[in-house]
C-alpha cells in the first residue's frame, strides 16, 4: 500500500469533450451513465500498480483532477481554476474527435496550465502567444486522448487522427483515441491500456516529484 506523497494528474479540455466520462471510466472501470456539466473541479482516484509484474511493484493512488470549463471563460473563472494547477505531476489533454476546435484549443489549455508554474505571483502575464521555447524544459509527462471515436465514420478516421500532430513537435506526448462509452478500449492488454500504464509509470519515475524546474533529469521515455 502506498503511503507516499500525492500524485496529481490534471485532466484538461474543452467543455463537453468527455472528460468526466473518461475519468469515470479510468477510475471505476464503468461507463458513466448520466454525464452532466462539471462545475469547478471533480476529483477521482485510480489505483495504479507502478512497474506491474516486476519485483519493484508498488501501488500508488493517482488523483485525476477533472477541471471543468472552456478556454474562453471569464478571467475570474480562470483565476479560480488556477488554484487547481499547483504542484501537478502529469497532464492529460482531452479533445473531441468530432470537433476540430477542441484540438486547436489544446494549445491554449497547455499555456494556461503550464505557465502557471512560471509566474510566482499567480497572475497570468502571457499575451496568449504561443512560444515554443517555454516548453522546451517541460518535464511533466503529457498524454493526449481523443474521445468519441465511435462517431467518426471509418473513411474519415485517418484525417481526424492526424489533427493533433502539431502537439508532437513541442511536447512529444503519447496519444490515445477512444470512445468513453465502451470499456473495451481500455481493456487489460490492449495497446491503449499499455500506453496508459506507461504514461502513469512516467510520473513517479522522477527523482523529485515537485513542479517542473526542480528536477535535473529530463527523461521522457520509460524504459
Amino acid at each position, binding site marked *: 500500500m502506498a503511503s507516499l506523497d500525492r500524485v496529481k494528474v490534471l485532466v484538461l479540455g474543452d467543455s463537453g469533450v468527455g472528460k468526466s466520462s473518461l475519468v469515470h471510466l479510468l477510475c*471505476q472501470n464503468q461507463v458513466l451513465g448520466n454525464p452532466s456539466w462539471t462545475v469547478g*473541479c471533480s476529483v477521482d*482516484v485510480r*489505483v495504479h500498480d507502478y512497474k506491474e509484474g516486476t519485483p519493484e511493484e508498488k501501488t500508488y493512488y493517482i488523483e485525476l483532477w477533472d477541471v471543468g470549463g472552456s478556454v*474562453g471563460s471569464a*478571467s475570474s473563472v480562470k483565476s*479560480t481554476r488556477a*488554484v487547481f494547477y499547483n504542484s501537478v505531476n502529469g497532464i492529460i489533454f482531452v479533445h473531441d474527435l468530432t*470537433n476540430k476546435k477542441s484540438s486547436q484549443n489544446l494549445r491554449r489549455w497547455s499555456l494556461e496550465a503550464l505557465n502557471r508554474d512560471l509566474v510566482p505571483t499567480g497572475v497570468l502575464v502571457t499575451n496568449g502567444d504561443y512560444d515554443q521555447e517555454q516548453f522546451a524544459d517541460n518535464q511533466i509527462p503529457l498524454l493526449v486522448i481523443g474521445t468519441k471515436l465511435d462517431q467518426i465514420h471509418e473513411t474519415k478516421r485517418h484525417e481526424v487522427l492526424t489533427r493533433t500532430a502539431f502537439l508532437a513537435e513541442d511536447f512529444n506526448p503519447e496519444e490515445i483515441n477512444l470512445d468513453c462509452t465502451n470499456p473495451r478500449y481500455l481493456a487489460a492488454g490492449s495497446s491503449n491500456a499499455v500506453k496508459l500504464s506507461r504514461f502513469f509509470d512516467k510520473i513517479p519515475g522522477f527523482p523529485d516529484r515537485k513542479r517542473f524546474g526542480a528536477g535535473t533529469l529530463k527523461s521522457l521515455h520509460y524504459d
Partner: protein
Amino acid sequence: MSFLIDSSIMITSQILFFGFGWLFFMRQLFKDYEIRQYVVQVIFSVTFAFSCTMFELIIFEILGVLNSSSRYFHWKMNLCVILLILVFMVPFYIGYFIVSNIRLLHKQRLLFSCLLWLTFMYFFWKLGDPFPILSPKHGILSIEQLISRVGVIGVTLMALLSGFGAVNCPYTYMSYFLRNVTDTDILALERRLLQTMDMIISKKKRMAMARRTMFQKGEVHNKPSGFWGMIKSVTTSASGSENLTLIQQEVDALEELSRQLFLETADLYATKERIEYSKTFKGKYFNFLGYFFSIYCVWKIFMATINIVFDRVGKTDPVTRGIEITVNYLGIQFDVKFWSQHISFILVGIIIVTSIRGLLITLTKFFYAISSSKSSNVIVLLLAQIMSHFWINSFDLQGMYFVSSVLLIRMSMPLEYRTIITEVLGELQFNFYHRWFDVIFLVSALSSILFLYLAHKQAPEKQMAP
C-alpha cells in the same frame, strides 16, 4: 424605372447586412466551436439581414428617400419573408435539431420534427384566442393574423427583458452596490476549497482501496437491486458495500460543497475585478451614467404604473410634445415640421444603433454562458427566433434590445410618418399592445428588484459563515 433603382439599392443593402451577420456568427458566436451545419449560419444571417432592412426602411420613411410606392412594396415583402422564416422555417429546424440530439428517435428524424412543428403551430394559433387582437374581417392566413400573434409573443419577451434590464443595468454599473473584497477573503476561500478537495480525495482513496480488496476477494459489489435483493441485504450484512454507500453519500455532500465554494470564489474574483475597473476613468464614467440610468428607470416604472392605473395611452409622441412645449412655454419660434423630422430621425437612429449593439453583446454573453458543442445549433436557432421576434416588435427609449416595433415605434413617430406602418399592418389594435407592454414591464421590473435584493442580501451572509 425608379422602382428598379430603389430595388437594387435595397438588395445591395440586404446583401451587406447578410455579410455582416455571417461574419458576426463566425467570429464571435462560434469562435470556439466547429460549424458543422451551415444551414444554421445561413438562417441566422438571413434573419439578421431582413431585420436590419426593416430598420433601414423606417429611416428611409423618415428621410423621404426612395419612391413611396416602392417603399411600400419592399416593406410588405420584408414582412412576408420574416414571418415566413419566423413561423415556418426556424421552428422546424429547431425541432429537427432537438430530435437529432435524442438518440432514440434518430431514425425517423424528419417525421418527429414535423410532428413537433405541428404542435408548435397549434399552440401558436391558440395563443391568439384570449387576446382582443383581431378584427373578424380578415381571413385565416392574412398577415394580420400572424403579426398579431408574433406581436404578442415579442412584446411579452421584450417587456420582460426591458424590465429586467432596467433594474439590472444600474445595479451593475453603480459602485454603490459593490461589496468590499480583499485578497485575504479570496485566499481564505481558496484554502477552504482545497481542503474540501483533499477530504474528497482521502475518502475516494478509501473507497477505491475497499473496492479493490472486494474485487480481489471475489465479492460482487453491486448495489442490491429488485425485491429479492432488498430482502437479501437485510439478512446478510455485506459490510463492504454498506461502508461504500455511506462513504459515497459523504463524498456527494462534500462535492456539492466544493462546487459552491468554487462558484463563490469565482464570484469574489469577479467582484474584485469590478472594483478595480471602477477605479479607472472608464469605470467612473459608467458609474456616473449608472446614476442617470437609474433615475430614468425609476421614471419609466413610475410612468408604467400611472398608465395602468389611470388607463391612459400615449397619444402624441415625445418629440412633438417636446417641441410643442418649447414653442408654447419658451416662446421660441421655429419650423416645427422641419425640426420634428430631423429630431425623430436622430432619436430613432440612436435607438437603433444602441439596440443593435446591445443585442449583439447580449447574444454573445448568453451564448457563451449556456452553450456546449452538443446544443450550440439549437441555441443559435433559438436566438435567431428571439431576435426576429424582437424585430417585428417594439423597442422603447431604453434601447437595450433590438426590437423594432412597428407597433410601439409608431408611438414615437409623428403622425405623418405613421401612415405607412398603419397601411401595411391594417387594423391591429395598437393600444392593446401598449397596455400589455406596460403591464409586463412593470411585473418584470418589480420581480427583478425583488430577486436582486434577495441575492444581494444573501451573499455577504455566506461570507461571514466560518
